[in-house]
């Protein structure tokens, strides 16, 4: 599991953040030695650091500058200061990315994934996912089963990908829509229904019928 370090002085926030990261397949490590944060980060063996700017003893920007002198460890700055100037400063000091509190959690996850993909050459969103009954090829936007394959549209791919990630769980329509909106497909309720129907029909073409089941009043489930 990839270890992510959290440097945040608010106790509750760092704990909730750590729970959230653990739920999403990362190992979260909370670093609290604020008077000795630089060596603490360097010795932590983390693959990525979430660094708050307002910290006791040394502020985040100072820590970032000092770390950049010796290490290239990916760092995402977290701050409640919401203006372009602070963002620019952080980027100039060598931060890999920047999020403002309160953060959009899906976007934070996406940023973490993007940085890890770049730095560790590990693709957390694997390009080819083996789903036992079929293979989902994300980079080609295709579903393969044996010799047969179907092409998916952008939205269909996103829907299927989300359902695959949550396989066996009921996914509420609202959650599915929020996921699509976060990845910039601003679709409405009817379009979602249409997309699901099309996706089902396409899956049926390669003899994958009844894969997506509708749970009335609750959402969808991928069996």
């Amino acid at each position, binding site marked *: 599991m990839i270890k992510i370090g959290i440097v945040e002085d*608010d106790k*509750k*926030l760092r704990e*909730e*953040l750590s*729970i*959230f990261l653990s*739920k999403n397949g990362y190992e979260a490590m909370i670093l609290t030695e604020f008077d000795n944060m630089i060596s603490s980060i360097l010795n932590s063996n983390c693959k990525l650091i979430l660094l708050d700017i*307002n910290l006791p003893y040394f502020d985040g920007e100072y820590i970032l500058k000092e770390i950049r002198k010796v290490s290239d460890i990916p760092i995402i700055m977290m701050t*409640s*200061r*919401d*203006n*372009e*100037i602070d963002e*620019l400063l952080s980027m100039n000091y060598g931060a890999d990315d920047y999020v*403002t*509190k*309160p*953060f*959009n*959690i899906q*976007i934070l996850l996406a940023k973490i994934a993007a940085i890890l993909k770049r730095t560790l050459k590990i693709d957390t969103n694997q390009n080819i996912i083996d789903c036992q009954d079929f293979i989902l090829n994300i980079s080609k936007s295709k579903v393969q089963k044996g010799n047969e394959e179907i092409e998916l549209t952008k939205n269909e791919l996103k829907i299927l990908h989300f359902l695959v990630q949550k396989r066996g769980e009921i996914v509420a329509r*609202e959650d599915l*829509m*929020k996921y699509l*909106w*976060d990845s*910039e497909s*601003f*679709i*409405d*309720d009817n379009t979602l229904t249409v997309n699901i129907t099309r996706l089902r029909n396409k899956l049926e073409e390669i003899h994958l019928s009844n894969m997506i089941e509708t749970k009335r009043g609750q959402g969808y489930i991928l069996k």
Partner: protein
Amino acid sequence: MSFKNYMKDHCYTFLFILVAVTASEIFLLTCKMHWVIRIYFALAIILACIAGFLMDYFKRRKFYNKVLNDLDKLDQKYLIHEMIARPDFFDGVILKEILDEVNKSMVEQVNLYKLQQEEYKEYIELWIHEIKIPIATSKMIIENHKNEVTQSIDEEMDKIENFIEQALYYARSNHVEKDYIIKKCHLQEIVSEVLKKNKNSLIKEKIKIELHDLDIDVYTDFKWCQFILNQIIQNSIKYSQKENKEIEIYANTYKDNVVLYLKDNGIGIKSSEITRVFEKGFTGSNGRNANQKSTGIGLYLCKKLCEKLGMNIKIQSKNENGCIVMIVFPKDSRIELL
């Protein structure tokens, strides 16, 4: 400074001189002086007085006319005391000293308020940064414990966040110094961010989003622009119809500007009220009846921020047929050469 007024001011002096001349004439008459001597004597006194008064008059006239003239030309009238050369007559000196003193005291007073306002703005910004931490924590807790109740709290948190953002930009908008950066921004990106930010309420209200022709770059501050669009989208959500809700966002490039259109099919704005929507504290009849009461701050702030960024904002509405908000981004062809 007219001669008449000057004479009026010195009428008693003239009277006394006249009395003195008459008295000396009577004295000379009783002494049986020759008439030539009497006339010579009277003329000498009167001419000397006239010469003295004329000199005094022209000196004052020159001084006051210059002061009045300078005052007229000055943009900031209170700076007049800096323009006055030290006069060479006594009451002029007093006037200059008074003006200097008054001005010094006023500058002190103004600085006091400036400082207070600055401190207040700093406090507001600090407070806003502080309050964002518990909001961020609450949002994380909600995310880790997803259910119907927390989802509902999440919507309320969104509202709190919006109000806080409004306060932050209000504090910023009243400030003279620049705390924004104008740079190249992609319209699609700004719009997407705003839609993502409002996804909870947009999805809940089942509002259909139609985006097209947004692949255009504009020059603005990303965060400020995002705030402006956010206010407009929130209004569209707040004042939507019951059914078939739709928001259409598109842009158009013209010769000197790029116009972003945000069109909704909500309840619209009454034509009698449309000219006043950008006024501070103005709540139209729709605003007073909506579920969420209008504060009359949102559009006022949009207008103010737009002006600071060199942009323009316009609004059109055909009674009960939704409204179109147009945001005009200036475009200078020279900028593309950079």
